Structure formats: structure tokens, C-alpha cells
């Protein structure tokens, strides 16, 4: 695990922070799994197990004023951008006080002030939207950068293609991260693309291409930081492929019957991003086990507190569904038979 380039220069506290975010991600997701099993969530649950380094290392490389658009497996990125565990749990429980007031699912939520825009389901669309977010940075001469995530599968969408090409031509300050986790639902990458690697797509758009081990949080930070710096200095788009692995099914209900025997176990035992990073911290950064335990405890305490708060949250009232389709009119009328 190379801490080369910029990652090597990260202060010690920052290196611990990287661990904290990965651990918080995993702890929070494990809590969501429990709540899911208890039937307390609304809708499916999508994990980023084994991909925490990819989400965390990349989001760690941007500034608070930068904007990212997360995908299904970027809980870690959202947390770094200021989304809180209680928001995430409420969102999964579709409570009245959730970020979308119970209207949308999972990580589909946004806060421009904190700099994140959750995705929508149709894959690839956010690449086009982030082309516009970063176009606005360019037009206004702001030194801000955008970061958008998509899966290996989403590279097959027209929206990805049009979005990255638009951003490339306009030299928007956009970093596009393809999270190659081996599968799109059940579809292996060989049935998604005939390219040798996803970073090969960069040349076709005339943008910089890069590729890194997505389970090495420092390498992820490193490759992203370089791209972010390029974007900020006006050098335009970079397409980064992060190679990782989706250890759970597409969502919790998916039994991964299509995965070759032993593949998941191999990644779990040999290539868990948190385990790997703990070894780096202990072996190279000389962090004490107790310090790591303290971070673990902190993450758990935060998730516990968030759970308590979320469990106390109310469900939305039905008629709340009628507001805010438009700014004006701000409310749709209920059908007459509901006002009886």
C-alpha cells in the first residue's frame, strides 16, 4: 500500500480521520442492516461493504466548497461532506424529518450548502448534472471542483457519455470516478464493456485518465487529489477508474448466486480496505491499537445516538405529499374525495 505522492504528505491526524470515516461508514451500514432486518427501513438496502476506501479516499481529496454527487455505494463520501448518521438513518426510515421528508430513498438526498447532491435512480444522469454544476464554477470563475461517481455498469449509459463529453469540451472542473466493483447487479464487467479497463475511455473524450487500487485509501486519495488539483487549475476533466469489489449483493435481498465460489471470501480476507488500512496505521504510522479502538468506539457511539434519534422520528402525514412540486403554486390540491 503505497503512500506516495500527496497522500504521503497528509498529516497524521488526517490519516486517522480517513480511518474514522471508513469505520463510521461501515458501522452505520451495519446498523442499517440491523434495522433492515427488524423491518424498520422502507425499501431496499444497498451496502458499500468493501468499497469504503473508494468513497472515503476520494471525497477526502476535495474541499468543503467543492460539490460531489454520490452514488449507491458512496455513503462514506456523503459523511465526509457533512451528511450526518441520523440523516442517513432517517432517510432509510422515510421519516417526516428525514432529508427528503420521506419522499425519496436511501442516499437520494442533497444539500448544496454542504456540497452534495445524491443521485437519482436512472444511472449516469448525475454526470450530466455535474457537468452543469461545474460549468457554473467555470462561468463564475470560482475555484471550485466537482466530483461525480458512477459504477462500471453506468458507463454504458448515454447520460454518462454525453455528460463527460460535454464537461470535457467545456473544460469543466470535474472529476469523474468510475467505481469498478466487478458487477452491475448480476452483470460482470465483461458483459458491460469490451474495453480492457474503464480508464481506457478517457482518451475518447480527450481527458486525463487514471486508475488506482480502490481498496487502498491512500492511493485513492492520491489519484483523486491529483485530478482535483488539475481540475482546480483549469486543466479540465479527469476520468479515474477505482478498482474495487462489491462484497454484498446488489442490495441486501440479492443472494449473489451469480458470483463464483470463493470470490467474495477472497476479497474479504485478503483485500478489506479497513483491515488493510489498520495495518498501515499500525505498522507504518505507529498508531496504537488503543487509538484505533477509541475511534471505533466514537463511531459506534455516534451511530447509537443517531439510531436513538431516528427511532424517535415521526412518519410523515399523508397530506404532506402535496407540497413543493413547484415553488409556485407551492401546494397541489388534494382530490375532492380526500377532503370529504
Amino acid at each position, binding site marked *: 500500500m503505497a503512500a506516495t505522492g500527496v497522500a504521503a504528505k497528509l498529516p497524521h491526524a488526517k490519516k486517522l480521520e480517513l480511518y474514522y470515516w471508513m469505520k463510521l461508514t461501515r458501522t452505520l451500514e451495519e446498523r442499517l442492516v440491523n434495522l433492515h432486518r427488524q423491518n424498520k427501513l*422502507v425499501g431496499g438496502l444497498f451496502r458499500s461493504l468493501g468499497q469504503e476506501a473508494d468513497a472515503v479516499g476520494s471525497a477526502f481529496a476535495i474541499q468543503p466548497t467543492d460539490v460531489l454527487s454520490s452514488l449507491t455505494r458512496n455513503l462514506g463520501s456523503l459523511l465526509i461532506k457533512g451528511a450526518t448518521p441520523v440523516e442517513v438513518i432517517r432517510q432509510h426510515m422515510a421519516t417526516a424529518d428525514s432529508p427528503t421528508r420521506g*419522499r425519496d430513498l436511501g442516499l437520494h438526498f442533497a444539500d448544496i450548502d454542504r456540497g452534495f447532491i445524491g443521485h437519482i*435512480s436512472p444511472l449516469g444522469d448525475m454526470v450530466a448534472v455535474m457537468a452543469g454544476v461545474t460549468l457554473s464554477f467555470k462561468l463564475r470563475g470560482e475555484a471550485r471542483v466537482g466530483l461525480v461517481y458512477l459504477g462500471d455498469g453506468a458507463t*454504458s449509459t448515454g447520460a454518462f457519455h454525453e455528460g463527460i463529453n460535454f464537461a470535457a469540451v467545456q473544460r469543466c472542473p470535474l472529476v469523474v470516478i468510475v467505481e469498478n466493483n466487478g458487477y452491475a*447487479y448480476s452483470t460482470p464487467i465483461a*458483459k458491460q464493456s469490451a474495453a480492457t479497463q474503464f480508464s481506457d475511455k478517457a482518451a475518447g473524450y480527450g481527458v486525463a485518465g487514471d486508475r488506482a487500487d480502490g481498496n487502498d485509501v491512500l492511493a485513492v486519495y492520491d489519484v483523486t487529489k491529483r485530478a482535483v488539483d488539475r481540475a482546480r487549475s483549469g486543466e479540465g476533466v479527469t476520468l479515474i477508474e477505482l478498482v474495487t469489489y462489491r462484497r454484498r449483493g446488489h442490495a441486501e435481498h440479492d443472494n449473489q448466486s451469480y458470483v463464483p465460489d470463493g470470490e467474495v471470501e477472497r476479497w474479504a480476507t485478503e483485500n478489506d480496505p479497513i483491515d488493510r488500512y489498520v495495518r498501515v496505521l499500525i505498522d507504518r504510522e505507529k498508531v496504537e491499537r488503543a487509538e484505533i479502538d477509541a475511534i471505533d468506539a466514537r463511531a459506534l457511539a455516534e451511530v447509537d445516538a443517531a439510531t436513538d434519534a431516528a427511532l424517535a422520528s415521526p412518519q410523515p402525514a399523508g397530506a404532506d*405529499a402535496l407540497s413543493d*412540486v413547484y415553488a409556485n403554486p407551492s401546494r397541489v390540491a388534494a382530490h375532492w374525495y380526500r377532503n370529504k
Partner: protein
Amino acid sequence: MTEITYLDAIREALTEEMERDPNVFCLGEDVGVFGGAFKVTEGLQARFGVNRVIDTPISEIAIIGAAAGAAHMGMRPVAEMQFADFIACGYDLLTNYVATSRYRTGLACPMVVRGPSGGYVRGGPFHSQNPEAAFIHTPGLKIVCPSTAEDAKGLLKSAIRDDDCVLYFEHKYLYRRIKGVMPAGDHLTPIGKARTARAGTDVSIITYGATVWRALEAADELAKANVSVEVIDLRTLSPLDDEAINATVKKTNRVVIVHEDTRTGGIAGEITARINEQCWEWLDAPVLRVTAHDVPLPNAPSLEDFVLPQTADIVAAAQRLLTY
């Protein structure tokens, strides 16, 4: 006779048609090894091979375009949208290419685009849509929406044999909740013919898809008050069965149109206009609509229940019609 689910009925239709005609093949995301997100195509790849059940990239434009191209060459593709919502990504291909191909150049597009549609399942705004309205508006496309297991099979078989593109919107709420005994033999439900789901004399409820079952519940409810309700299950939305619509209007003189889709621009407007044009004199009361509210479909159960049409709403509308 054993009952099978609506979902199994779809698979049975696919299986029979693939057996019957070597030109029939399936394509879509995860339809092969995995058998599809809802397991509709489960086992088909093992049975018919990788050339007849094709796993595609996440590319709705290409799935629909490729189906059209193969259809031109005499194949009979059945394309799956993993959720009907994503048909939006192929809107240009469907409306501009597929729908116009025969009319403009004489090239046939005998293909089916199928996918799970509809709500009542806490799927949120992108996994619950009823995409029919935009396509009803498109000359050149046909649309069917089965509400029973029998029709799920019979309409899919007819759709596959149709010489034009048929959008087949199966309702995910019904997948495992509804069962039926399949008629023996080569069971084909004709495209373009509605079905009387329940005969009655006082009020007509015209609907399709999952809300057929809510309409039947409402009819039961109303029967307790001695109101005789006729429920028409449209089955095909394009072309509409004007004959069946006119017949029920002339019989009951009072009509509620029910759909799960949002109200404004939904098919109820079209049906109301046709009734106006074709049998206005027979109406004893205005045509009423019971539909979703005009908002994206929200996720929380309380919100979804509020937005979507419910049985009580249909009862209320029928009761109102009886005050005229």
C-alpha cells in the same frame, strides 16, 4: 388445475413463445444468469441458451434500438426494462424510431418492451412509475396492461405475435399477489379488447392494471348498499376498445375512470373525451376520475398511500355519481 402466479404466467408465456418460434429471444439487464430483478426470466437462459436470453449492458437506448434492428430482420425480440421507469431513457428511440418505422418506410418492428410498472410497493419515485401516458400519445405503439394472471400470459403471447411494437407493462404489485388457472392450449388474449371484470347496472368503473382489484373491492363495498357496479378492465390502452367503453356507458350512464397514474395528462382524460364524443347523450352524470395526485410518487408508506388511489376513493366517486 393448478393456479400459478401472475409472474409465473409471464414466464410461461415467454417459454411457450420461445418454444414455438425460434425468432423469439429476450434481452435486457440481468435477464440471463440471474433471471431478472424479479426473476421473471429465471431458468430461461439455462433452457434456451445465451443466444436467446441475452444479458445487456445498462443501455436502454441500445436495448430498444437493438430490438428494433433485430425485429427488422425478422426476429421477435422481447426487451426487458429492469423497471418500467427506465423506459424514459429510451423515449426517443421508441417514439421517433420504433413507432414511425412502418409508417415512414414500411419497416416492421415486431417487438415487445416489457417491464415491471406501478406502485403500492414502497418503491419510491423511480421504481413505481406508470409510464403509459406518454406512449398512449404515440401513434405506432400498442400498449397492454394485464391485471390477471390469465391475461398476463395471454396478452404477452399476443404481443409477441403482433406485427408491431407492443409495450407490455406488467404490474409489480400483482406479481406474486395474483394467481390464476391458465386456459388450456395456445392461450391468446386479443389485443384491443377490454374485459368485463364484473357486470353491473348502476355505475361503471373503467380501469386497468392493479386498480382493477381496487375497483372490484369498491364494487363489493357498494354492493352492500345495493349499488350494482360494472368493472371494465381495459387490458389494452392503445388502441382503446371504444366499443366496450361505449357499451358500459350506455348500460349504466355513470362512469368513474380509475388509474394509478397521476391525473393530469393521464389516460382518463382521453377516455373522458371519447365518451363525450361518442355517447355524451347517455351520461346521467359527469365522468369522474380517481387517480394518483399530481406529484412524483413519494416513498414513505403514509405518503404513498395518500398519493395513490385507494378503494375508499372509488367508493366515494361512485356514491357521488349516484347523487345525480
